[in-house]
């Protein structure tokens, strides 16, 4: 048997979680008072976990690098959160949500985890409403839903275009209640720099106070990592500037296996890059594809004319345009899943049809939708022989009501009015399905060390469906981890406080300090960003939307060389004992460089195309699906869990075979 034990309970899928919960060892309330839990990260996953753990009676010590839990990057989620409430009566159910999520993930996730996720999803909405989260409502006062990402039911709950913000503020408020009661000790502006293991178990962390620079030891009976995704390995992504892999990578180096690092989601509708100074990319909600039509010019002369400013996109007639998604995927059209839409945009731009100066942009056009809505409105309002301008005005009002804030955001960034000229979009790195390997209890391969939210790998397989990350973060934090962790902690009721004076803590602190000292004394030639940008370029060119063996091998070698250069020539100004943002970045980029190499190795090993991982060698050669991604269930229906062995390239692969008992594996088709 493999060293991996997923600990999935026996029994029928439908009863697993309930039966398991009924038999979990509990810690009695008096004993919980003697147990400390560290939570690193207070986004949706970590924040909700802190709140429930504290409410159950544990002493929680929470850490975040921002100045308040309210600023975690969960705040940026726009679109919504899924839940199988079936409020719209359109046939939704736990099973259907489970099915859509497994299928959307291209059959590379763990069935039992996904089913549990679908099961607790309904609780999340109840919980959030009770906390005062102002979800959108209809005129009858009931909760409203939208449909998202090509699924057939309306199950997405939303709060304008700020769903993540409202959910996070809900979790933050639940935390505040526990902070006020003294049950959560919140350490803002603190960065975890290592985990400490005592007798093989996770017993604490080393953290740096980002204001004073002080290095601190913190102990606990269990450690939970909830540090978010690692999309910034690409330098440019829709993540926050501080989003990082460090917590996950540090625990990987201490024994936690890292799963499926190459599964990255590249989101099709982001605002294109405008120049080399670009520091991050901004997402435009996927909901725009419900009404926008995506195109590039058919003729190269028009492309050139547009780039040189001799023509405007609105000058092109219908038959001079190539609505390539509608052309290639008549059944789903502009609503194909994210991975498919992103690759199709890249294909057109690689062929030279990109419409901006960088050649990396396609149009997202609302003119048809505006006309359609306008005509409809003219009928509803009984306006006879409405002029074209009138129709446009009526239609624009509808589009504005639906997407006004997004259009405004676009205009602020690009300085063009998207009601008058089509938007320009291009795919960008957005989410990482891969992450730290966890079992059904959300425990890593290190006893007492847990990982939740985007930082773990468990629920989204090779591709995440829209509105399911918020659901997973809150499910893990509010409703799963606080119970599964009891099973482990029930053995710790007599352990007593964990000392921070043990050799293990001293050693870990020494290592952390030495590394920081290296950075500020090295005085090399190049800034940290110089390396981060180089890494990003290798990742984007060779481990991006499509990958091949040759490119991946080159990427591994180039990243290794970059790492060697980094450790010789990086320059970090300032000192250790002060606020020093460059020093923080240096540590994060050092970890990204190591992760990047493992990422490429993982992609190289997976000789199939699945979800966000498209291997050029694995495509359908004929038939209707010719040229489309080809999954290989026979050889690759497993999770790749990597064990650290000193160098990223030496990592050892462990396979968790995926079993599908309640779902039939099918090739996805959107034709």
């Amino acid at each position, binding site marked *: 048997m493999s060293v991996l034990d997923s600990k999935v309970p026996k029994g029928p899928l439908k009863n697993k979680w309930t039966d398991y919960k009924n038999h979990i060892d509990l810690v009695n309330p008096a004993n919980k008072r003697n147990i400390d839990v560290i939570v690193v990260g207070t986004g949706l996953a970590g924040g909700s976990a802190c709140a429930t753990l504290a409410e159950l009676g544990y002493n929680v010590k929470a850490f975040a690098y921002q*100045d308040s839990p*309210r600023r975690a990057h969960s705040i940026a989620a726009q679109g919504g959160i899924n839940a199988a409430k079936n*409020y719209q009566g359109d046939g939704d159910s736990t099973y259907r949500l489970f099915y859509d999520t497994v299928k959307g993930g291209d059959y590379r996730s763990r069935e039992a985890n996904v089913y549990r996720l679908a099961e607790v999803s309904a609780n999340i909405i109840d919980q959030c409403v009770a906390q005062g989260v102002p979800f959108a409502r209809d005129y009858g006062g009931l909760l409203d839903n939208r449909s998202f990402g090509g699924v057939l039911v309306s199950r997405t709950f939303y709060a304008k275009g700020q769903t993540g913000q409202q959910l996070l503020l809900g979790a933050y408020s639940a935390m505040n209640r526990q902070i006020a009661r003294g049950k959560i000790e919140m350490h803002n502006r603190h960065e975890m720099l290592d985990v400490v293991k005592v007798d093989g178990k996770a017993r604490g962390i080393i953290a740096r106070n980002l204001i004073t620079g002080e290095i601190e030891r913190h102990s606990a009976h269990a450690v939970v990592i909830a540090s978010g995704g690692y999309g910034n390995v690409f330098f440019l992504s829709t993540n926050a500037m501080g989003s990082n892999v460090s917590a996950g990578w540090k625990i990987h180096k201490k024994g936690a296996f890292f799963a499926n690092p190459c599964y990255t989601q590249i989101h099709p509708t982001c605002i294109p890059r405008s120049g080399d100074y670009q520091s991050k990319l901004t997402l435009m909600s996927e909901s725009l594809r419900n009404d926008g039509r995506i195109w590039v010019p058919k003729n190269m002369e028009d492309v050139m004319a547009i780039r040189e400013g001799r023509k405007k996109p609105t000058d092109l007639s219908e038959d001079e345009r190539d609505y390539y998604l509608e052309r290639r995927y008549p059944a789903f059209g502009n609503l194909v899943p994210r991975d498919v839409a992103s690759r199709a945009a890249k294909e057109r731009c690689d062929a030279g049809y990109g419409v901006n100066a960088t050649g990396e942009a396609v149009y997202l056009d609302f003119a048809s939708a505006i006309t359609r809505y306008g005509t409809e409105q003219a009928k509803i309002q009984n306006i006879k022989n409405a002029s074209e301008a009138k129709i446009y005005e009526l239609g624009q009002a509808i589009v504005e009501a639906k997407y006004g804030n997004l259009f405004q955001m676009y205009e602020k960034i690009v300085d063009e009015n998207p009601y008058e000229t089509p938007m320009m979009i291009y795919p960008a790195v957005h989410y990482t399905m891969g992450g730290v390997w966890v079992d059904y209890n959300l425990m890593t391969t290190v006893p007492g060390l847990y990982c939740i939210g985007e930082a773990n790998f468990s629920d989204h397989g090779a591709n995440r469906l829209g509105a399911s990350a918020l659901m997973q973060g809150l499910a893990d934090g509010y409703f799963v981890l606080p119970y599964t962790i009891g099973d482990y902690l029930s053995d710790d009721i007599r352990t007593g406080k964990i000392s921070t004076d043990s050799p293990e803590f001293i050693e870990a602190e020494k290592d952390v300090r030495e590394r920081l000292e290296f950075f500020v004394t090295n005085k090399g030639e190049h800034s940290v960003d110089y390396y981060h940008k180089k890494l990003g370029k290798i990742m984007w060119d060779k481990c991006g939307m499509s990958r091949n063996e040759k490119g991946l091998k080159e990427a591994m070698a180039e990243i290794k060389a970059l790492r060697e250069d980094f450790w010789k020539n990086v320059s970090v100004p300032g000192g250790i004992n002060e606020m020093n943002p460059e020093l923080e970045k240096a540590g994060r980029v050092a970890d990204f460089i190591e992760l990047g190499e493992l990422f490429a190795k993982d992609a190289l090993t997976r000789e199939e195309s699945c979800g966000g991982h498209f291997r050029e060698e694995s495509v359908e050669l004929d038939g209707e699906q010719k040229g489309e991604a080809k999954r290989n269930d026979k050889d690759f229906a497993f999770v790749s869990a990597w064990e650290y062995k000193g160098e990223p390239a030496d990592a050892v692969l462990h396979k968790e075979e995926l079993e599908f008992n309640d779902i039939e594996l099918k090739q996805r088709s959107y034709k």
Partner: protein
Amino acid sequence: MNLTLKIWRQKDSKTKGQMVDYKVTDISEHMSFLEMMDVLNEQLINTGEEPVAFDHDCREGICGMCSMYINGEAHGPDRGVTTCQLHMRMFKDGDTITIEPFRAKAFPVIKDLVVDRSSFDRIQHAGGYISVNTSGNTQDANATPISKHDADEAMDAATCIGCGACVATCKNSSAMLFVGAKVSQYALLPQGQVEATDRVKNMVAQMDLEGFGNCSNTGACEIECPKGISLENIARMNRELLKATFKS
């Protein structure tokens, strides 16, 4: 474009700060303000100087981390945006731009342009929540209908990003717009009624304790607020406070 920047430099909370002049060249109008700051910092690092510390994270106007008082305005000259969403097209070649931290007694400077806004968190600890357990045993979300109008208004209040521009703008450094927004969100929803009296009293008491000033109704906060939080929220909070005082 080429610009002169006058930037507040301060080593730490204990050391006195001062304005220092810098020059940046070849700034594109498409850059965001923070990308312009990145250019400056890269330049400083390459010449062995200490880069300017400033707070930022999401760079899309939602986390509330970025601050900066630019040419005498919180978040700079554009309306309805945070500093990270401000673009260089708002400036012209040859301009001199003054950049200072948000200033208020309750927001002490940590370093350069970074300030400590933990006073906002402590106000939230005092009552910015509904006391419901996170057990998953709450009633069904649709059991209590809430009128669309109230839900939308609660949502408008809830969009506050806790940036502190309202405080930095106010000549009294009052936090009434921030606190009013949170109090309003819960006051507008049935879930928030049970604790309404204690909530408003406790939050306002904490606000006073933190050293925020009084509101003298000049309305500058509303103009500078990047999220369009309206003065109505302050009025609603005052009504709630009055109700609470009568009750006790």
